């Protein structure tokens, strides 16, 4: 490289840097309105705080998460909840309950695989018993006779399996549409979905039908609607200005407590 070309390069780099600096400072100007009065320190601030912090959860991506929380609020408001309300309006309560039962029963497969992954013997047998009972006597899960036989439901998923074997929850994460989660639980969700897809492909229930795709999409949509129908949570409904932190804390703590290994009795 000749000296002149080297110089030209350097000038170019300088210019780019200068341009960037200018651009950034302009962006800075755009952010602060010229006529905004200066900030004044409040009467009480965090500097006087002499206590343990509480209800706190690792949340390095809070900005992103809060945006996602807001996105979910709007998604619910303008699409999801109107659809769910329509569903609730046209479907008799009896039918709604049968549909929920059907999908909850399918969920037992996830509960079973994960209680097996956690080597929980009794629980696996119970869950298998529930699945068999409700699939047969309960007419494919439409009814839940297993609970009245004393077989309690144990909700498990791969996020809990990871937690059980000691994986840390990782940072808090608000997923689009699905809502509160964590890095670990989001990974777990991917694994559960993969297993489910694998089982579905192996069984291929609608393989003979020409409309397999349409049927599958219909069922998936109905499942999504039923899932939201079963959840009473509504974003920002509490009206509490710190709701985000309350939801974050309760989600995290519930997962921590339920996925932990039982301690030996004293």
């Amino acid at each position, binding site marked *: 490289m000749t000296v002149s070309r080297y110089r030209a390069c350097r000038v170019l780099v300088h210019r780019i840097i200068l341009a960037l600096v200018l651009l950034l400072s302009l962006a800075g100007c755009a952010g602060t309105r010229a006529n905004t009065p200066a900030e004044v320190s*409040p009467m009480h*601030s965090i500097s006087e705080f002499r*206590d*343990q912090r509480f209800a*706190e959860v690792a949340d390095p991506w809070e900005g992103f998460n809060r945006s996602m929380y807001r996105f979910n609020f709007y998604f619910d408001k303008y699409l999801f909840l109107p659809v769910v309300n329509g569903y609730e309006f046209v479907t008799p309560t009896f039918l709604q309950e049968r549909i929920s039962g059907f999908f909850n029963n399918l969920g037992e497969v996830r509960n079973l695989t994960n209680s097996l992954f956690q080597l929980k013997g009794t629980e696996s047998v119970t869950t298998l018993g529930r699945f068999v009972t409700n699939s047969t006597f309960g007419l494919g899960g439409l009814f839940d006779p297993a609970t009245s036989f004393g077989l309690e439901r144990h909700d498990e998923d791969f996020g809990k399996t990871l937690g059980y074997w000691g994986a840390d929850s990782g940072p808090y994460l608000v997923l689009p549409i699905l809502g509160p989660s964590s890095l670990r639980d989001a990974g777990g969700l991917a694994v559960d979905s993969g297993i489910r897809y694998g089982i579905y492909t192996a069984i291929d229930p609608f393989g003979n039908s020409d409309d397999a795709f349409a049927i599958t999409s219909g069922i998936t949509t109905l499942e999504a609607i039923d899932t939201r129908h079963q959840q009473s949570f509504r974003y920002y409904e509490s*009206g509490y200005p*710190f709701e985000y932190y309350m939801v974050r804390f*309760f989600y995290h703590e519930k997962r921590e407590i339920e996925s932990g290994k039982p301690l030996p009795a004293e």
Partner: protein
Amino acid sequence: MMHLRMLFITCLLLLPVSSMAADDGYGYPIPGSYEATILGTPASLIPKFPAKMRTRQLVLDVIPDRQIPPVFFYDTGLRCTFAYQEQKAPLVFLIAGAGSSDRAPKLLTMMKAFYQAGFHVITLPSPSLANFIISASQSSVPGDLTEDAADLYRVMETAWKQVESDIEVSSFHLCGYSLGASQAAFVAKLDEERRVFNFHKVLMINPPVSLYNSATRIEELVKQIPGGSKKQGIFFNKMLAKFSQYYRYGNFVAINDDFLYSIYTERLFSREETAGLIGLTFRINLAGMIFSSDVMTNGGYVVPKNRLLSATDSLFDYFLVSTHLSFFDYLNEYFYPYFQKRRPGLTKEALIESESLRSIEGYLKSSAKFGVMTNENDFILTKAELDYLRQVFGERTKIYPRGGHLGNLEYQENLDYMVAFFK
């Protein structure tokens, strides 16, 4: 507040009723004042209501042209719930307790009971709830009974205007619990001048006689925290550890009713700890009120003056700071200075005196429309205040032997009494 209650107890199923009830003909089973307050009414003792109701959510534009700060972008108006009959019927306005929304579980149970008995119902959030402070409070500084009543009255008028053409109303009634009960009294008094509703009857449930005295008694619960209220973070974390350890030692399936019930029967938390948890819940609730009021007034109390918070800014430090402020901090540093500025010469004693039923005693005594329902062991009242209620309202006072503060509100007998009062 609902969040902690959600964590500790939502409902109890298999409560052994007969073994616990004292033999006084009243079936509400939980004897302790604090326990009743936290546990409420066991699910099996809450009456069943028909699932289908004609309801609609009202989102009211109470103060047109109000500027909503970006941090409260989700607040598009005051939310009330409206349940309506197809035929002509009386309408009851229900006012929620401190910090509660129009969909607070207790309020919804009351709504169902009234609806089933043939009333139209409109539930109103508490003027101390952020939604109210942001969308419906003229001053955005909550806690003054006279001003809060004026705000509530405006809300009721707005709500009525919105539903007037859809229903037929034979008469108007008013009912509130806790802070909402005292506000109901002041709203009724205002109605005597304004005459928009001409409230036929007004029921006050578990009212404080003096806001200052009752808040003081709740603050005393916070004082039972080891190290005092400034160490409530340590206390919170300790209680949480206890809670989670208890779960992991026991063989529980999930954090469900059975687990929560066993916390009560095994007495996981001591009496002081239970008191501390009620106090802490109060503080967490109060924090929401302080923060939203400060943002709305640009008061520079916990948020820097002139700071424009965005929808995605972190608020956690404000949460920590606000939860460490007491009712007295709010009164002395924020509430009183605000009113002093507007009414020069106002003493703190006079302000405190005005936040009390005693300040409208003459009116309360002279009007036959009032009724009071409360409990012998409601910890927000002293013995003397309980006697005061008896003396002012005479035989229109109904005092149950137990139930703590609002614990028995959803109990069948109590709901029956409320409905019968308006019949």
